[in-house]
């Protein structure tokens, strides 16, 4: 079987799709890094580059298949941006942003033993860390 040489628009189109679809996966793999996670840094340039390559493919060959690939890339980038900025937005925490003193409480720890915040802070500085849970 002879290998078929792929034309330039086909290569551009495939590379464009790969980069645009791959961007979020690279992002997913780098979630452990706080700054990467917050900014989405690796995903955006990859996806935009993919879009550019898809655009170049359409410019080189205006057939429908290349336009469909480009449209898929635009849609994918839009979906990622929607998820990143919109679906992930949290309600404003006005009270936590404004209060100057901690509000005391007593809660059970993982062994059911009650812990009172003010009894801890008199001994030394406390970092109170609210998180979304283990689910």
């Amino acid at each position, binding site marked *: 079987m002879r290998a078929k040489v792929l034309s330039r628009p086909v290569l551009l189109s495939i590379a464009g799709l790969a980069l645009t679809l791959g961007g979020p996966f690279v992002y997913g793999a780098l979630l452990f890094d706080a700054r990467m996670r917050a900014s989405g840094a690796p995903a955006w340039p990859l996806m935009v580059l993919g879009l550019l390559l898809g655009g170049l493919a359409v410019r080189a060959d205006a057939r429908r298949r290349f336009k469909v690939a480009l449209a898929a890339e635009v849609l994918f980038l839009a979906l990622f941006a929607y998820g990143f900025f919109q679906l992930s937005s949290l309600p404003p925490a006005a009270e*936590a942003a404004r*209060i100057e*003193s901690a509000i005391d409480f007593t809660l059970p720890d993982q062994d059911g033993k009650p812990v009172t915040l003010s009894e801890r802070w008199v001994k*030394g*500085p406390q*970092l109170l860390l609210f998180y979304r849970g283990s689910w």
Partner: protein
Amino acid sequence: MAELGELGEVQAELEKRGGGILAVSVDAPQESRAVVARKHLPFPILSDAGRSVIQSYGLVHARGGPGGSDIAIPAKLLIDTRGRILWRAIAHRIQDRPDPADVLAVVRKL
């Protein structure tokens, strides 16, 4: 939850000053016990199953959790020995996670 494992150094610096980290989630104690064991956490996880604490701090993400339950908005508050809040970081988006280095720098100056 990945952020819990990265705080060993912060905990060590706080311990030097007689303090420590207190994590809070709405999970039941037994769920948190598994997390503390699995991640070998050097600090406790407190259970705000009744949501009263996240309510009082204004940190309720209504229907943000599994099955539409209310959970906490991710936040870090550094409290001094008089109960004053010295530093805080509150997430605006789910993916916001302050770098542990930021809070470490503040703790080292205490």
